[in-house]
């Protein structure tokens, strides 16, 4: 495992021109067969989640939908944007075609399996 194998967060040049968005907190856990990415996206219904893989980029974009009554005025706001965005760079031993995801109660769980050839093999160390 070296640094290049990790999904990295990237700052692509075009992000500056996009609408401002919140950076959702994530957990990234790797096991023998793949990587699980968990992101907090509270307030996002399924149809407002846009998860996509483009080349080696995994992009999460989502929109917050809150049930607000007519004429509501903010008194206090800690969540001041209604959009989440975060992008990760996948490494080539991950199988981008087999990415699966589920969104439940505002938590997105993405599973990115490792390609078969990249699954761990035990390498015996010769002792001389």
């Amino acid at each position: 495992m070296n640094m290049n194998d990790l999904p990295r967060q990237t700052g692509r040049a075009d992000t500056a021109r996009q609408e401002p968005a919140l950076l959702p907190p994530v957990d990234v856990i790797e096991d023998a067969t793949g990587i699980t990415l968990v992101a907090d996206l509270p307030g996002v219904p399924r149809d407002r989640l846009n998860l996509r893989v483009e080349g080696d980029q995994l992009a999460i974009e989502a929109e917050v939908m809150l049930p607000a009554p007519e004429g509501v005025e903010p008194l206090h706001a800690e969540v001041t944007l209604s959009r989440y965005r975060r992008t990760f760079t996948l490494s080539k031993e991950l199988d981008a075609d087999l990415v699966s995801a589920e969104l439940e109660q505002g938590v997105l769980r993405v599973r990115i399996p490792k390609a078969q050839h990249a699954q761990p093999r035990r390498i015996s160390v010769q002792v001389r």
Partner: protein
Amino acid sequence: MLYRRLFPSDVFAEFDRLQREVQGLFDYAPSIRGLGRGGYPALNVGSTPSSVEVYAFAPGVDPAGIDVNLDRGVLTISGERKPRAPGDEKTTVHMDERFSGRFRRVVNLPEDIDPNAVSADYRDGVLHVSIARRAAAQPRRIEVH
């Protein structure tokens, strides 16, 4: 400015801007219980002439385990977010940003709320508490004869 481009999506500038925005909403004296910035769950509070609307951004919590309490004009939201299941020795945690553990947030509500007219629902990871205001406090149009 070159230094800005070194940081992904201009995180620091964005954070600055958010801070300022929040400060702007809070130019009056803050509550004695503090603002709880950065706490979990994040809170948004809004008002309409007939209600106060509280939104707690608490993703991934069992709704049965959220305790919503209204006592003398103070709304308390507490509960626990279970930590992730521990992995075996083959798992590696590369990023660990999500909150876990017990949480408690407190909101001071306006004086005119009706403690008997509260509703709460949990959807898409957001707890929405709606508290009605007493009718007397609602603006009325007064006819001039």
